[in-house]
Structures are given as structure tokens and as C-alpha cells.
């Protein structure tokens, strides 16, 4: 079991800038977690520590039986895959397929294993139809899926997505939901940073809210999105449907379209 544990973790950048201030969290193996908060809240620094890109200045980051302090980033990256916010920082091959092949080939797997992983990764990201294409001919929002495929092909136990919803359209968001669902079913631990509250409400079992370098609260989307104190601290808003229902007297729980519909119907019945 590869639980991910952050124990009294702080991080300061060289020069003394404190980016994460004494946080604790446990993410169970197979969990599907979202991290929300404004830029500067410490989200990216936190996930970079999970991936070993940054080492905590104090405290421990433990993945299963590995303490990231004792391993190089490349070693940790075989257990924790990380999709950067900007795909252009990662892509350097001239076709989509070779970009996705790079990781598994680096890991010196057998040819069949590489082939099957690449095929799978391309398929679930919908990139199979562009596999011969140069990634830079695709729009930015699609290039993001190329880097997602590249990380999926690494077949790590934990995957981190940094703002995959940025700039995505309806279709892109749908595909992301499907990818998350598929990975969840395969038992992967998935940690996603997102600014899209609707997306978070409908795709995750647990939400971690961060603000000012600290964890403000954690819980199910139902709990988090009706915890006004926490939302205010993090300067976040409820999903639209929750806001509307709240204005109409709802006290909690509602975060999805179906729940909102049911709430409104019940209100109507009660009044009828």
C-alpha cells in the first residue's frame, strides 16, 4: 500500500521565502483528491514535494515505505508521476507517440510492455488519433493531454495533475473526467490541482483547501463547499448550483446538478 503522508512539512525557497508552512496530510492509496486554493497558497510547492522535485526544509514526505529525502527525483518519479502546469516545459519529441514512449523506454521495459502502455495511454487520453502529429501543431489544451498520456504511460502508483482544467473546453473537461475515473478504477492515487470548482465538485471524493501556505480544511466536496469559513479564508466560491440553492434557503449538501434539481423540486412540492 502506497499511502502518501506529509508529516509537519514546511518548505522555504533558497533566499528564505516560506512557501509551505507546517502542513500535515495523509492521502490513502487509491484515493482521488483535489487541491484547491489561490495561486501562492502553496499548492504547487506541496505537490512538488510529493514528487521529490523539492525536498521539505523540515518534516517528512513519505510514499509507502520511501522517505523522499533518501531518493533522487528521478527515483521518486517512478512512483509518483507529475504533469506540469505548462505542457511546453516537458514536450521535446517531434511526434505525440514518441513523446509518450520516452518515459517507458527510459525505464528499460520490454518492447511489448512499452507498446502496450503507450497504446493504452494514447487511447484513454484520446491522443491516439494524433499519434503521428507533431505536438506543437496541436493547440495548447491538447498538448496538455500529450503530457498526461506521457505520465500515464509511466504507470506510476500515484499521479499528480497540476491544473489540467486550465483552458479546457467542454470536450476537454469531459475527457479529463473520464481519465480520472479510469485511473481511479485501476486503483491509482490521483491528486489534482484545479481552479474549476464545478469540476472539483463532480469529480473528487476528497478536497483539500489551501490558503496562505497552510491547509485550511479537508473533507468531502459536500463538506468543503458548505464550509463558508474555510471558503472565505481561501477566497473561493461555492459551485454555481450551490450558490443558487443557498440563496433559496438550502442549508448544505448540495453540490451537483441532480441534487440542485431535487432540492428545487422538493421546495416546490412543499409549497404546493
Amino acid at each position: 500500500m502506497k499511502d502518501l503522508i506529509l508529516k509537519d512539512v514546511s518548505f522555504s525557497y533558497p533566499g528564505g521565502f516560506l512557501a509551505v508552512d507546517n502542513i500535515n496530510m495523509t492521502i490513502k492509496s487509491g484515493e482521488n483528491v483535489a487541491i484547491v486554493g489561490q495561486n501562492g497558497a502553496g499548492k504547487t510547492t506541496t505537490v512538488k514535494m510529493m514528487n521529490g522535485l523539492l525536498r521539505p526544509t523540515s518534516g517528512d514526505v513519505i510514499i509507502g515505505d520511501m522517505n523522499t529525502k533518501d531518493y533522487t527525483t528521478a527515483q521518486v518519479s517512478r512512483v509518483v508521476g507529475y504533469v506540469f502546469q505548462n505542457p511546453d516545459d516537458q514536450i521535446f519529441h517531434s511526434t505525440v507517440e514518441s513523446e509518450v514512449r520516452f518515459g517507458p523506454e527510459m525505464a528499460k521495459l520490454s518492447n511489448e510492455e512499452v507498446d502496450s502502455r503507450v497504446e493504452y495511454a494514447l487511447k484513454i487520453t484520446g491522443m491516439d488519433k494524433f499519434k503521428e502529429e507533431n505536438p506543437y501543431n496541436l493547440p495548447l489544451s491538447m498538448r496538455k493531454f500529450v503530457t498526461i498520456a506521457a505520465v500515464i504511460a509511466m504507470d506510476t502508483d500515484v499521479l499528480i495533475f497540476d491544473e489540467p482544467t486550465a483552458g479546457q473546453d467542454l470536450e476537454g473537461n469531459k475527457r479529463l473526467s473520464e481519465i480520472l475515473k479510469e485511473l481511479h478504477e485501476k486503483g491509482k492515487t490521483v491528486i489534482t490541482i484545479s481552479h474549476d470548482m464545478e469540476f472539483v465538485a463532480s469529480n473528487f471524493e476528497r478536497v483539500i483547501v489551501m490558503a496562505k501556505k497552510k491547509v485550511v480544511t479537508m473533507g468531502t466536496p459536500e463538506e468543503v463547499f458548505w464550509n463558508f469559513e474555510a471558503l472565505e479564508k481561501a477566497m473561493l466560491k461555492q459551485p454555481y448550483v450551490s450558490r443558487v440553492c443557498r440563496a433559496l434557503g438550502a442549508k448544505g449538501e448540495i453540490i451537483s446538478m441532480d441534487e440542485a434539481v431535487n432540492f428545487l423540486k422538493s421546495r416546490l412540492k412543499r409549497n404546493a
Partner: protein
Amino acid sequence: MEKTYTEKIQIHKKNKLAGLYPSVKALVVLLYAICCFILSTVKLTEYELALLLIPWFLVIPVLCAASGAFNKCLKAFRAVSIVALVIFLAQSLLIPGGETVLKLGFLKVREQGLRTAITLSFMVMDIAGIFVWMFQTTENKEFSRALENSGMNYKATYVFISTLQMIEILGKNSKTIMNAQRARGVETEGNVIVRMKAFFPSLVPLVLGAVISSEERVLTLEARGFDVACEKTHLFNLEKSGIEKQVTFIAVLMTIVLLVWRIYLWIA
């Protein structure tokens, strides 16, 4: 009364050397480099080494200190020294020819090697050093204003100045990219071969990123009226520090004296 922003962006330097008009600094750089070449032709000792280049370097720390920028320059000097040291070692150990001057186990330093090593590494130290002085004591907008005043096309000026700024940003980007590659299992820590392997995956995104963003930046400039055919306003005005003439005089004089001395050595 509160200062206006236009007043706040002006640069008033107390140090008269640091505040020299940029073209005078450029002249000092040029003359210093010419002197380097003159000095490099003076061969000393039985091995015919251009040893005068070594004391000539001392001019630079003195100049930086007198300009009040010694600490700022120190870091750059360190980098320059490393490059020079690598050149020195490579040249002195690898170039064959002439007598053996020094033997360190199986390594031999030959006469010819030592000769080119000293000339080349100290030339690099000297010339790079004087540029460090110029760039550390001059802000980008001073350069850009001076270039435009000297009649350089505003587009060429833009390219020059933005390149100076971009070097810093490319440095930052390359760090991000290295991290992104490490995150997917490319080892960037370790020996030379490991680092070489990581080089390519980092270089491609860096270059492509620069190309893409320069395309977007061209449009941004266009949107800000970069191409408008009219007399442009300059919010920033260059000041002279008042000792331009004296500095020019001293620099020219030193060069002439050196040159005359060198010619005298030839004739005598």
C-alpha cells in the same frame, strides 16, 4: 510634493564612474581590449609568455571598486574565472610542442601549451572582466536610450535590450524545464554523461518556448503601437556624470602610451 512616476524612474547616480555616459563606458571597454592585444604581444621569460596580461587584469577590480560595484561584480568574476581556468587547463595539458615545462605524473605541460594557455585564458579574463564592469554599472534602459541617441534604429535597440533581459528569463525557464524533465524520470543529477543525456530533453522545450513566446511578443508590441511612424516620446532621460571628457582622455592616453612603448620595444 509627491514625486511623479516619471521622476521616480530617472536614474541619478552619485558615483561618477558608474554614472558615465554608456558610450564612454563602451569606449573604455574597447580601448581596454585593444590594450589587451598590445600587451599580449609582449613576450616575457624564456618561454615567451604574455605575462603582462595578468597584472592588466588588476585594472578591473580597481575600476569596479571605484565605481562602487565591486560586490555586484564578484559573482560574475567567479563564473569568468572558472571558464578561464578550464581553458587554461585544457590548453596547457593538451597542446603538444616544445620543451616539457612541468611534469605531473603522466601529465605534461609543454612550452607551446603553456604559452597559448596563458594568452587565451587571461585574454578571456580581461575582456570578459571589462564587460562585466560595463554591464554591472549600467542599467538596461541607459543602454537602450544611449543606443537610440546614437542613431541606432529603435527596432535594433529593442532586439538588443530584450535579449539582455531574456537571458535572465531563459535561465529561469531552463530551471523549470529541468524540473519538468526530472519529474518524468530524466536524471539531471550525477556525472557528466547523465547530465549530457538530460541536455537534449531540456534544450528543445527551451528553444521552442522561446520561439513561440517571441512570436506572441511581436504581436503584443504591434498592439502597443511599436510600428507607429512618428517621433517617439522618451520618459527616461540619460544624464552625464560630468567626467566623461576626463575619462576619455585618460583611456585614450593610456592606450597611446602603451602603443608607443610597444613600438619602441620593437624598434629598440
